[in-house]
């Protein structure tokens, strides 16, 4: 029996237990609603006085930002209960009497978190096809351009959130309400600091990446876009 088998067993059981709860559907609905707001033009990413055409690249970039910014907040609170659940359900004492190591257990929980958050991102990404078609500005679907931002921006962000959620649960001080407040401020700083500092280094949500990419694309078409800066 390898450690990988135990890790995957923990992740699978934890994942199934979570996605079969009504609260998962609620969180998923919330993510899709945010996606709808973004494509309906109620959550906008603007480049100066311009916005992108709703083609695959723009839709993918916009929705991946929704994932890396909003799901990284709501998703954290949704997944930050995996170890606590083992305490509450009293399954933990059975697990504690097995030879499984602490590292394997925590890794399994982290992967479960990532799977749950990743599933939200995948569903949001898939909904991007429908949203692009509904918006109808460019009906040509380019899969790589649509999905690459999710793969390169949103999923890594979810991996960070998954690990941070397990870390918060493992530290007694951060386990409860205090940890929730701390995360809210950490998340707020993570989102706003790159703008305040004007640096790309701390761009955890990937907003600068998407904006720069869009601006570069715009520069190819229009020289006047060269002086634009990103803001929402």
């Amino acid at each position, binding site marked *: 029996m390898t450690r990988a088998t135990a890790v995957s067993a923990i992740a699978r059981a934890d994942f*199934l237990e979570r996605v079969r709860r009504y609260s998962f559907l609620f969180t998923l609905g919330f993510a899709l609603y945010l996606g709808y707001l973004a494509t309906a033009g109620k959550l906008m990413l603007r480049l100066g006085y311009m916005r992108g055409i709703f083609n695959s690249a723009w839709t993918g970039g916009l929705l991946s930002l929704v994932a890396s910014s909003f799901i990284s907040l709501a998703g954290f609170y949704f997944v930050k209960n995996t170890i606590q659940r083992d305490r509450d*359900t009293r399954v933990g004492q059975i697990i504690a*009497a097995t*030879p499984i190591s602490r590292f394997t257990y925590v890794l399994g929980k982290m992967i479960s978190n990532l799977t749950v958050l990743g599933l939200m991102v995948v569903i949001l990404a898939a909904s991007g096809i429908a949203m692009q078609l509904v918006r109808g500005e460019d009906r040509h679907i380019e899969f790589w351009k649509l999905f690459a931002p999710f793969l390169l921006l949103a999923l890594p962000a979810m991996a960070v959130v998954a690990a941070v959620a397990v870390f918060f649960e493992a530290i007694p001080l951060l386990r409860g309400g205090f940890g929730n407040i701390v995360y809210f401020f950490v998340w707020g700083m993570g989102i706003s600091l790159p703008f305040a500092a004007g640096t790309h280094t701390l761009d955890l949500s990937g907003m600068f990446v998407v904006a720069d990419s869009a601006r570069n694309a715009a520069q190819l078409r229009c020289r006047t876009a060269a002086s634009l800066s990103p803001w929402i």
Partner: protein
Amino acid sequence: MRLLVENLSKEYRGNVRALSEVHLALGPGVLGLLGPNGAGKSTLMRILGTITQPSSGRVLWNDSEIARHPDPLRAVLGYLPQDFGVYPNLNALEFLEYLAAVKGIPARAARNRIRELLELVNLTDAIKRPLGGYSGGMRQRIGIAQALLNDPQLLIVDEPTAGLDPEERVRFRNLLSELSGERIIILSTHIVSDVEAVATSIAILVHGQLIAHDLPEALLASVSGKVWEVVVPSAELPALRQKHLVSSTAHRSDGVHARVVADAAPEGAARPLDPSLEDAYLSALTRQRSTANGALA
């Protein structure tokens, strides 16, 4: 195969002493651990299950101290805690597959073992139902199944018959009898009839102290010639209880048939009876209380 408990003590915050200098040496067989609620049985089970650390003393599994090296024991341990839980949205198969993987059992072997165990605990019909919809007795049977997944050498079951109906209890006792052989089974309970049928040795724990650890025959011998049946009118039963230890009563047309444990025959027409383990257990508890009260006085 040997489990040795040496001078084991456990204190919780606020100087609450749950265990005091407990000593036990166990080989293959079934130990029935008896004691009233709050005697420290679950604390002892949790220490033996490597969940809780003792305040002092040590536990040796095949000469290896489990506090320092828990893994050799955990690899061969089956543990059913008193208040264990399940994932309510998993079904029996998923839950047991999960625990089998955590216990290090290869997937194919686990699947076969799970089928066997679900049949053994009579849950094959409910295999795909979410555990959240199980009754208390069904959950308890899942607990028993998970404890047996790795065919344990040391099986610790804490109040395993709680929530089981009479038929299931008999089935569980028979299962324990079948399992006892080349393994150590510790069955903790406050229900004497549960251990009477299966225990090869019995330990009695009261207020964290081990007041007896002996063969069932030896415990029975301690009350041999001291158990009587007395028939009294219902109105006289309270007075009889005040004078003597009454282990059980049964109302009949001629009055209350009371089972009395006493060194000498009670007044009136007392008929000697063969002692039961319950008589021996209650007698030991009463002696312990008298000693404790005497020490306080």
